[in-house]
């Protein structure tokens, strides 16, 4: 069974700083997708960024980028120039391309951006 682990329950940084959220996963699959979701206090889950396992190039979306290390099964999220609006719960998620295609989420990291 696939598992996703986020080892940082909470993090806090100052506005404009860079912050990295960790995520590791366990799977025997070779092809899969990885996602980072953001859940602000409004409760609405929003997709931040996605990565295809067969692509070596790390995905980037404006201030958000990932460091995907397939051999290490690591998928960290870097937020550059953090903003107050980045305050939220962040969830890492995994889904295999084949087999039981079910999204598996980590337990989340609560990120607070301080003014």
């Amino acid at each position: 069974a696939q598992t996703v682990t986020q080892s940082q329950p909470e993090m806090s940084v100052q506005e404009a700083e860079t912050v990295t959220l960790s995520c590791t996963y366990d799977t025997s699959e070779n092809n899969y997708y990885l996602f980072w979701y953001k859940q602000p206090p409004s409760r609405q889950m929003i997709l931040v960024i996605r990565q295809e396992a067969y692509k070596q190039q790390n995905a980037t979306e404006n201030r958000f980028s990932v460091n995907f290390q397939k051999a290490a099964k690591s998928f960290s999220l870097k937020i550059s120039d953090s903003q107050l609006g980045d305050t939220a719960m962040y969830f890492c998620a995994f889904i295999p391309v084949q087999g039981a295609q079910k999204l598996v989420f980590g337990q989340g990291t609560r990120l607070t951006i301080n003014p």
Partner: protein
Amino acid sequence: GAGVSQSPSNKVTEKGKDVELRCDPISGHTALYWYRQRLGQGLEFLIYFQGNSAPDKSGLPSDRFSAERTGESVSTLTIQRTQQEDSAVYLCASSLIVGLNTEAFFGQGTRLTVV
């Protein structure tokens, strides 16, 4: 509709009563998930529907919980004889299972309070 719709958005019920939560997925989305999220916690997988396949019920916490989905449309999550520990936000998500289109779109959730 444009997104995943859940109703009601809030529900307060007395202990021991049955409740029914509704999820309208995005039209055409074959996969549908239910998650439970306790205050400040991560996403707890409950059940997963994928097309006409048998649902994955492995996350249902007890036989008081059940869910149905008719085809690729509406799903209902039923909790019988509610307990205070059932108090949480119940999130529904839907997705296509086609390549990169495995992104899950979430509803705003139903906040259930058992008093």
